[in-house]
């Protein structure tokens, strides 16, 4: 599922801006009005960003993050040749990761 993440990097003054799009339904847990049952929802719970193998950002998400999540952040003092890796784990145990090298 590595194609579920698209990462774009832009070199800016003082670092690199990372923008990522993840394909994921991100459905919220909800009460089914007909069945009176909780439908659990399907959403990403953890997202991690690494710079050259070291974690620089780790996030916990709820279903309050919109479908097909967009995440952007800026890494200081990063530049050409640095490897940025993004990975996620959802509440169904699925996971994916993807990486780019800053050019």
């Amino acid at each position, binding site marked *: 599922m590595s194609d579920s993440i698209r990462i774009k990097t832009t070199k800016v003054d003082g670092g690199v801006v990372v923008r990522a799009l993840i394909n994921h339904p991100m459905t919220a847990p909800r*009460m089914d009005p007909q069945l009176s049952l909780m439908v659990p929802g399907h959403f990403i719970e953890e997202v991690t960003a690494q710079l050259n193998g070291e974690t620089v*950002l780790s996030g916990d998400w*709820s279903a*309050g993050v*919109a479908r097909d*999540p967009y995440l*952007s*952040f800026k890494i200081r003092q990063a530049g050409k040749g640095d490897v940025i890796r993004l*990975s996620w784990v959802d509440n169904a145990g699925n996971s994916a990761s993807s990486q780019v090298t800053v050019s």
Partner: protein
Amino acid sequence: MSITRRTFVRAAVTGAAVSTSFAAGVLTPRGVRAALPPKTFTSGAPADAIRMVLGTDQSVLDAAVELDVAGMAEMADMVPLSVRTTLQNVESITIVADKNPNPIIAHYRVDSRLEPYVATRVRLAQSCQVQALVKAGGTVHRAAKDVEVGIGGCGDSER
């Protein structure tokens, strides 16, 4: 089965990738990771949820925290939002919508190599106050903004 060069190379590469991922913490077993209690994201009261994530529900309104979100959101299930701050030694950035069924939308732990800035798109259940909480040097700094929503969202989860 004979081992062709291709299968050998593939196995070696996969093995190496898996072990480096483990070393790098990507594939850390879920139990090992110091995760938030899952209750955090199912709790109803914003103050309780915030306390569970940040250890306190006390925060100071601070102009150094900048929450950028439109005051009127056309589509409640895709509201672009960003948080940035000029504060130093930022430990975490948390986004809270007080009327969402799970008030904590996202909680980011940031490293010192990261500029204290995150942008995400969020889903709002209904018009409410959105807060950005930045924990820096042991205190929680806050920015808040009222967001009016149009159509969409997950409003029927209120039932």
